[in-house]
């Protein structure tokens, strides 16, 4: 017979040991998260909603153009009319804090994994584990470490959102044209210079796609965080489920979707050219190509080459 391996018990014992040994660490993490989320929530909630709606609309206009600006205006006005403004801002604060921390962990790990094969080999199964473990399994230790409230929700969200940041960063850097990296080496660039000036800029679209995924996954964890008592749209949905209240369930769900679309379209723009940079580029090009010499160089390029090289 195959004996029962006490994996679950071992992990449980390990968590108990952690709690006994370094309780101050979890207190510190807990406090920092709490302060970050509370601070950001206050910032978002304290002014009149119209202030932030205008800000969001302008940001959408600058980064993405008039259509997203129009969507932003309508979507957030709808949120206000659903009387879910405060909950939506609480959720936004939670998502932003979790996404920033997840990206701050995931992107550097991705860079390391792209540069060191050993790191990549170790990190990959860890990421698989993090992505496929059922979400609720995270929640148990999160509750043990951080109690109930917003912090365990944020921590579980961070763990859940890190993998795409790592994967897409690693992929992006690996996909940078080898010859361009070689050229930087051939001209004597240091490894740090190559990373900063060649690999990261060229991997930026992929890294930003990763950040976008981080944010979207963070948002998808909101309802789960609501189960742990984090305030926000998650709490609205959880309450609706427990009370079988279809109306507020639909409204809470709609608010999540509206916020998700806004964040997705906005962050999807990070890796690409923004409306502003497009405008600047177009103006620059007009200025630089206005010189009379351009047609000459074009002609030079296509000069008939059939004639003998010299007389």
């Amino acid at each position, binding site marked *: 017979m195959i004996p029962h391996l006490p994996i679950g018990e071992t992990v449980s014992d390990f968590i108990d040991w952690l709690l006994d040994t370094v309780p101050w660490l979890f207190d510190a993490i807990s406090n920092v998260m709490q302060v970050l989320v509370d601070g950001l929530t206050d910032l978002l909630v304290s002014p009149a909603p119209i202030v932030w709606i205008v800000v969001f609309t302008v940001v959408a206009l600058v980064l993405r153009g008039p259509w997203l600006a129009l969507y932003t205006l309508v979507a957030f006005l709808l949120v206000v009319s659903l009387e879910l403004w405060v909950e939506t801002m609480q959720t936004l604060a939670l998502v932003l804090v979790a996404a920033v921390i997840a990206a701050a962990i995931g992107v550097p790990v991705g860079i390391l994994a792209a540069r060191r094969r050993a790191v990549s080999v170790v990190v990959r199964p860890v990421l698989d584990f993090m992505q496929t473990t059922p979400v609720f399994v995270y929640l148990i230790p999160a509750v043990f470490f951080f109690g109930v409230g917003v912090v365990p929700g944020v921590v579980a969200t961070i763990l859940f959102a890190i993998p795409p940041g790592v994967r897409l960063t690693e992929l992006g850097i690996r996909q940078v044209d080898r010859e*361009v990296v070689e050229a930087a080496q051939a*001209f*004597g660039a240091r490894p740090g210079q190559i990373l900063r000036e060649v690999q990261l*800029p060229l991997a930026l679209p992929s890294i930003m796609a990763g950040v976008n995924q981080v944010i979207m996954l963070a948002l998808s964890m909101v309802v789960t965080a609501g189960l742990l008592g984090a305030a926000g749209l998650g709490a609205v949905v959880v309450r609706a489920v427990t009370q079988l209240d279809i109306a507020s369930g639909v409204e809470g769900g709609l608010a999540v979707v509206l916020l998700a679309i806004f964040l997705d379209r906005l962050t999807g723009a990070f890796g690409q050219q923004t409306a502003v940079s497009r405008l600047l580029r177009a103006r620059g090009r007009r200025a630089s190509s206005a*010189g009379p*010499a351009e047609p000459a*160089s074009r002609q*030079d*390029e*296509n000069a008939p080459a059939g004639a003998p090289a010299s007389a």
Partner: protein
Amino acid sequence: MPPVLQVTGLSKVFGAREQEALRLADEGVGRDEILRRTGATLAVHDVSFTVERGELFVIMGLSGSGKSTLVRLLNRLIEPSAGTVQVDGRDLRALDDAQLRSVRNDKISMVFQHFALLPHRTVRENAAYALKIRGVGAREQRERADWALRTVGLLERADARPDELSGGMRQRVGLARALAADSEVLLMDEPFSALDPLIRRDMQDLLERLQSELHKTIVFITHDLNEAMRLGDRILMLKDGRTVQLGTGPEIISAPADDYVADFTSDVDRTRVLTAGDLLREPRMTARLGDRAGDVLRALGTAEANGVYVLDDRGRIAGVARDDLLARALQEGRTDLGTREVVAEYATIGADRPVVEFVHLVGRHTVPLGVVDDDGRLLGVVPRAAVLDALSAVPARGSVR
């Protein structure tokens, strides 16, 4: 003074059992057999050559011949398995990372097959890349980059981004980046292979012009023997990582070392490689001013020719004596060959000019094309048959001269 670039016994094995593979290679075991026995790939084996200052040295081989590996061994982008590379007498393999970076930055520049420009930087910033790494001041960076861009004819597009340029223009930026670094050695890894044929010709012209002005020491990689013949002062033929032949273009065409090289040379555009000097023949007869017209006419009859070069006392061509005109002169009682009896019905060419420049002159006159030195002295002639023989595509080993 040591040669700019000296390569001795350079080898590269990719794979774990490096030393074992090298030992087998030294015993003369072939590449496939080495791969089968050790699992290691022999990319380059025991290649030695020197490149002198100002020389354009071509490494020629097909894909898989190891030429791209070889050029990367020259600046240690790939670490050699054996052998040495000396630049200005300094052994590259003895350098630590920082020293190697500094040598790469100001002694050896590289031009890449697919340009390898930074897409997020302007053309000018790309051209200044080596200087930026070197830590040169912004103003000097700009001046040097602009000089390099002007040299390759692209200064007007200095503020454009690489993706706004055509392939030929992008490679000009690649060339400008290498020139701006002001390094002695230029490694060019199939720089024109990705370009359209017409653009390729333009770029070859550009490189020839630059080389005649700047006299860089260039190692040029190509798989195109025509390009190799056209540009190279000397050519190293590489096959399966080993040197097959090393020599000048005409040397390789006239005496291919083996069937592999001979196969290649049969495809070469000989009209651009072979020069008048290569096809030169001793004229069957010449006449001198003051010779007796009757003797000359008789000699023409014997030689079954209709005309002959008449030289003055310093060996320069005075003109051509035609049999019919000689006959008329005799009838009219003029027996000495004077300047009045010769006509200017001939064409001449310098000994260093390629066939393509004189093929239209061959066979036009009663006398064959004359090959002359700078003072107009007749060195020899190029009969039509010699041109046709040289251009016939049959890989005729050693039969060209």
